């Protein structure tokens, strides 16, 4: 009540956009507050990470997170990302044989898997999980999919662009993404020519990237599409290229403004609309706060976001210091994505796999195939993460991860069949395999090794989480770090650390954050 009233006073008084209402009255972060903040902005915070934030003010904590943000990945990318020279891919008209096309496809699948593993490694290793979370957020906002783009290299470059701007400026990000080669392919900009416009990008940039549905007319799309004609890529370098001879130089009218606009000018028209800031802030709210945005707060933050020329940190700072973020009803209100579940669990339990790809495959099996969102709208998230199939895949993954003393323990790879076919043992022995099949077998073995490389020492973990001598107290401490809300069932055997952890991670409450 009190802070909200202040908010409006401040806004209308035109005070500096960084100042936030909550600054005036927020209590220091408790353990539960710090845990909530770190799990919403990162993945599976450990007890010692949480302790570092206890006692900070909301503003200090948000500042620390935002100041720690990165613009590049720490993990070295796969070697092929450094390739220079003309891109190799079968082009229409070059009469590539079916075999060449197949080999190209297999190569891209392999590189795509490496790319997924690389990003998962970065999520595990990064000192700024918020950077990766925002990169993933933008990946799900400015969707492109390797299913259509094909070239893993272009998906990598897009990921680099998303990370570079992840906590930077939304306007810069929008302009960068519009000319990002993977996006140019994904939304058919390369097919958008004077006289025969392709409206795909123009439509999605308004509906999904900026204004949101219903904030524009069909005619705006048609006109905007003309402004983007000629935005293309150079087929040798795979870099953006403007082709002036297929660009429409006529006058266009978009959202009431007329002129001989080019694509960048149309993007600026979209950024000038208040609806754009509100659309993005509403989505950030659903990502970080709760599934039900508070419209008054959204428009407040959106106004400050736009006044700050779309500085993403301003919006995030407002969100991370808001009362709604820390409100009781926001706690445990979000469903963990497969990335939350897998990366969060690995980070939480200090599990460092020797090979990350199997975990990226497991994430894909639970419905979140990185670099391949289901369609241009991205993963719808929240409750759609959980159906009977994905919930059993999640539980089976967790169950095998914490099976414990079983020496042949291997965490389940839910539904790996679809991604890497099992190889018949006898074919291997008879040496009948073509090189590609042999490679697939090696891949499967690496996957197995990656899974087996993960070890969990339950007693060690328990000792890091709690020093209490009393088993019931230790169980309560473990529960506090692992669950955002009370478990549905009292854990079995609180004295046995492995049984306790198993019981807590298999509880429905562990699916929430």
């Amino acid at each position, binding site marked *: 009540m009190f802070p909200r009233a202040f908010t409006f006073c401040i806004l209308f008084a035109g005070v500096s956009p960084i100042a936030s209402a909550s600054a005036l009255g927020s209590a220091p972060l408790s353990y539960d507050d710090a845990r909530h903040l770190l799990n919403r902005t990162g993945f599976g915070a450990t007890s010692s990470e949480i302790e570092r934030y206890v006692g900070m003010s909301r503003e200090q904590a948000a500042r620390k997170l935002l100041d720690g943000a990165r613009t590049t990945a720490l993990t070295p990318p796969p070697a092929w990302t450094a390739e220079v020279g003309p891109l190799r891919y079968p082009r229409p008209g070059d009469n590539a044989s079916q075999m060449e096309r197949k080999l190209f496809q297999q190569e891209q699948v392999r590189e795509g898997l490496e790319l997924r593993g690389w990003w998962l490694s970065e999520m595990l290793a990064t000192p700024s999980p918020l950077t990766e979370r925002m990169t993933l957020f933008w990946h799900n906002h400015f969707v492109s999919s390797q299913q259509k783009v094909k070239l893993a290299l272009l998906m990598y470059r897009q990921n680099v662009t998303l990370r570079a701007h992840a906590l930077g400026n939304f306007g810069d990000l929008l302009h960068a993404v519009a000319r990002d080669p993977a996006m140019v392919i994904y939304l058919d900009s390369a097919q958008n020519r004077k006289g025969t416009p392709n409206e795909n990008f123009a439509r999605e940039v308004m509906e999904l990237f900026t204004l949101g549905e219903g904030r524009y007319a069909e005619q705006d799309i048609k006109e905007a599409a003309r402004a983007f004609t000629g935005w293309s890529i150079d087929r040798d370098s795979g870099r953006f290229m403007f082709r002036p001879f297929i660009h429409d130089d006529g006058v266009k009218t978009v959202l009431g403004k007329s002129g001989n606009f080019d694509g960048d000018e149309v993007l600026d028209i979209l950024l000038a609309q208040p609806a754009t800031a509100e659309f993005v802030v509403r989505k950030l709210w659903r990502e970080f706060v709760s599934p039900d945005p508070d419209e008054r707060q959204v428009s407040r933050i959106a106004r400050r976001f736009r006044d700050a020329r779309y500085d993403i940190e301003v919006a995030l700072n407002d969100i991370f210091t808001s009362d709604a973020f820390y409100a009781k009803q926001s706690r445990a209100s979000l469903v963990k994505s497969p990335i939350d579940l897998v990366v969060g669990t690995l980070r939480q339990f200090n599990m460092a796999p020797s090979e990350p790809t199997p975990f990226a495959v497991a994430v894909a099996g639970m419905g979140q195939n990185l670099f391949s969102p289901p369609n241009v709208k991205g993963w719808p998230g929240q*409750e*759609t993460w959980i159906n009977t*199939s994905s919930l059993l895949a999640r*539980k089976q993954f967790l169950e095998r991860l914490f099976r414990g003393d079983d020496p042949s323990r291997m965490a389940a790879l839910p539904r790996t069949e679809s991604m890497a076919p099992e190889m018949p043992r006898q074919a291997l022995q008879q040496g009948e395999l073509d090189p590609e099949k042999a490679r697939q077998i090696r891949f499967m073995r690496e996957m197995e090794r990656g899974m087996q490389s993960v070890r969990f020492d339950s007693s060690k973990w328990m000792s890091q989480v709690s020093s209490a001598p009393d088993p019931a107290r230790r169980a309560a401490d473990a529960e506090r770090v692992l669950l955002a809300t009370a478990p549905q069932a009292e854990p079995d055997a609180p004295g046995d650390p492995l049984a306790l952890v198993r019981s807590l991670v298999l509880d429905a409450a562990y699916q929430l954050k």
Partner: protein
Amino acid sequence: MSPTSKSTDRRRFLKRAGGLAVVALAPSAATRVAWAAAPSGADYRKLLVLIELKGGNDGLNTVVPYASSTYYALRPKLAIARDQIAKLSDSAGLHPALEPLLPIWNQRELAVLQGVGYPSPNLSHFRSIEIWDTASRSEEYLQDGWLTRTFSSAPTPRSFAADGVIIGSPDLGPLAGGGTRAIALANTDQFLRQARLAAAEGQARNKALAHILKVEADIMQAASHLNANYAFRTEFPQTGFGNAIKTASQIVANQAGVAVVRVTHGGFDTHSGQPATHARLLGELASGIVAFRSALDELGKWNDTLVLTYAEFGRRPKENLSNGTDHGTASAHFALGGRVAGGLYGEQPALERLSGDGNTGYAIDFRSVYATALERWWGVPSAGPLGGKFAPVPILRA
């Protein structure tokens, strides 16, 4: 041990102030489903079986327009020789691998739907199957499957084990999204093992938790119903598809109450070396369907079963340079069952009038096929779930 017999006395349910009502209770040691009509008046005793031909089946070599010289001109290598075709009419016939279906055709229980597709077809596997699964328009993105929308407006009886069972694919397809009770499983034994990890107990303190508990309850309800092991006399083919059909037959035998079963038969993306692959896949399809029919006859259920095939698209009429075919548009599909009015429906592909990218138009909108299943099979309205009025195809006997 059933997943519901976990001793509850060791577990203290946590009750929280302000909690919502208990959302999920473990199902009682349920007896057989009472065949009460669904609240909506829909007749979900009739089973719908969807067979997905994943990858995009070559409709042109499935139902062959063998009287067309254009067909033979477009496919110098891949065309099926006239003398090998299992003829259905003086212009259409089946691929020889589908010959086992002829007895069903002769009993007039096989309807052949020619040219099933939609306007502005999309040639991407992902996007096009999404269009089929959500029954959306080509440029429209919907989240829920067409059956999910159906069951939300006309629910199945609560006593049913599930709305639908998805066999052989983790992807829920037409049952995705919403509040549908869809169970995905490879086979019932494995599902029952996995289902032991489900525990639908406690109170839902918010919407997200309520949803998870509901899904856990769905798993447990299905698991408690799907444990019978019927001893069929029918021998099922030892193929992936044969196993899936066996699982489907077990589910029917359980009489647990399931409105729809979706079985996926994959591998139809035949860009190269098509003849051998396609013949094998169609052979597996035919032997699986024949076994299914025999199993359902044993159960006396063939008359209460409608089988429909579907796929994201057909394949391009002109063969490619690798002895295969590329992504196409409309395709031929089958409807089978004891109440099917056998015969040829739709139109043969107009091979003389191909589009700019070398594909055919469509004769039957796939949503008309769905409308048939909804209105004429189950007796539920179709305009809502399908986003518009689509005329059913008269493939069912009154």
